């Protein structure tokens, strides 16, 4: 019996019908695992996250989540099965307050949300300070915290994070990566789509390197960091790929 929470097999998908960006991709995530997905610009990293979460129509292939084929389901159906997605940009509701944004994360849940909100505020004290502030007035780092906190309101089994460090200063990036590690240590499986390849691979249990919509390399973070071909993909050099 497999302990994979997510299995992607031979997936072809794109934004326009018959124009596939993902070209037969294979990908798996074990329960509680942190998997980094890296690759040069245009490799299909964000497209993969969107395809898994039902934001794109699959032209071919299967996606199994907790053993169930979810290919063809819409995102509002997938979220009910315990998967949540944090988009790269536009990831908060700017006219809603921080508190309302968090409550939105638990839209499909019944019952009191107070204990959940408290645990998110404990994890991100900055959000507690700004709970009545409009999300549109938050800084980039605070927005990212809010987006992750809101996703955790669902208590998901798998979190898809699409470039959480995009457009953040280096100090904020470190903070965001620490939070991702902390979330993973709570037992949540995480798919981390990242441009910041070195940081992502150093933290991840395993990683995938995408190129032109295909999974070119797979391995542990250390294996991929030490693979000269991965470096060539980024900089044309086998030494540095941060």
């Amino acid at each position, binding site marked *: 019996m497999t302990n994979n929470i997510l299995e992607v097999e031979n997936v072809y998908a794109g934004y326009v019908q018959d124009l596939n960006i993902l070209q037969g991709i294979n990908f798996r995530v074990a329960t509680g695992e942190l998997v980094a997905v890296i690759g040069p610009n245009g490799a299909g990293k964000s497209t993969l996250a969107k395809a898994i979460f039902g934001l794109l129509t699959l032209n071919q292939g299967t996606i199994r989540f907790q053993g169930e084929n979810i290919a063809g389901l819409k995102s*509002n159906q997938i979220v009910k099965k315990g998967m949540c997605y944090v988009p790269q940009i536009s990831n908060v509701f700017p006219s809603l307050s921080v508190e309302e944004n968090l409550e939105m994360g638990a839209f499909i849940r019944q019952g009191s949300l107070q204990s959940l909100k408290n645990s998110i505020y404990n994890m991100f004290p900055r959000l507690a300070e700004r709970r009545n502030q409009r999300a549109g007035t938050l800084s980039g780092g605070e927005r990212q915290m809010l987006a992750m906190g809101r996703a955790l309101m669902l208590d998901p089994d798998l979190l898809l994070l699409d470039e959480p460090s995009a457009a953040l200063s280096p100090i904020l990036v470190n903070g965001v990566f620490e939070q991702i590690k902390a979330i993973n240590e709570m037992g949540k499986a995480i798919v981390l789509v990242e441009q910041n390849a070195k940081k992502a691979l150093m933290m991840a249990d395993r990683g995938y390197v995408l190129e032109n919509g295909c999974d070119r390399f797979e391995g542990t973070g250390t294996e991929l960091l030490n693979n000269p071909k991965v470096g060539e993909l980024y900089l044309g050099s086998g030494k540095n790929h941060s």
Partner: protein
Amino acid sequence: MDQGRMWSQILLNALIAGSTYSLVGIGFSLIFSPARFFHMAHGGIITVAGYLVYAMAVLFKLNHSLSIFIALFLAAILGSVMELLVFRRLRQQKGSGTIQLIASLGILVVLQNLISLVFGDDVMVLNPGVVKEGLQIGAARITDVQLGIVLTNIVVFLLISFLLHRTKIGWMIRAVTDDAELAQIFGISVELVILLAFFIGSAIAGIAGILIAYDIGLTPLLGFQALFMGVVAAISGGITSPTGTMLAGLLLGIIMQISAWLLPTQWQEAIAFTILLLFLLLRPQGLLGKPLRSKKV
């Protein structure tokens, strides 16, 4: 008429006209916010609601209150049917906001022509009672219907503000307005939210149409004229902000009434267009609006 009395009456007239613009604008912007297109057939619903009350109360001699209640319900249903049969299908076929606007304009023309065919183009009067002097407020006078317009605008504004900020439906509408794709990620049915906005927004259009009909009578173009000023109020106020729409409606009422006093009345539409143009050039997000994310629904 002395100057003080004249200006009192102008300001009261501005409040009445501004309340009408605000009512129409609030309904229009409630639909625009999640659906993201200019629903021109909103004007058709304004007209249809007025004529429905006319048909029931005047032609079939039904009780006026019952006629109003039925007309409001039918206006809300008509708007919802438009969404279900036309706009939802266009969205599913990846139709842009411009295509939906053109379809909506087409529906407006069809509704206007149908009304013209059934009722004719003459002015119909819904309020044939004895002409009364009106209520004295300070140095100015206001009729019962006009007072009803002002009070209804306040009540509708407060109810919509409560709906948007204190209820789950309002919370869903605001979320879809902000970002439909993100709202869907968290399990909100965007289609249901848009349908609800059409139902409530069309009911507000019905209220506006019926009040205007009782105040000045009915013609097939009634809704289009009201819609025009309502859209100017909505854009100038900030198209997703009911507070901004109401304030802009009242401001527009003041400007229009003062200009009607100072200039020939044929300049009124040019003045409204100029106000719209100035806002679009200098403050495109309107008085209290925020720049919108250009996401497709």
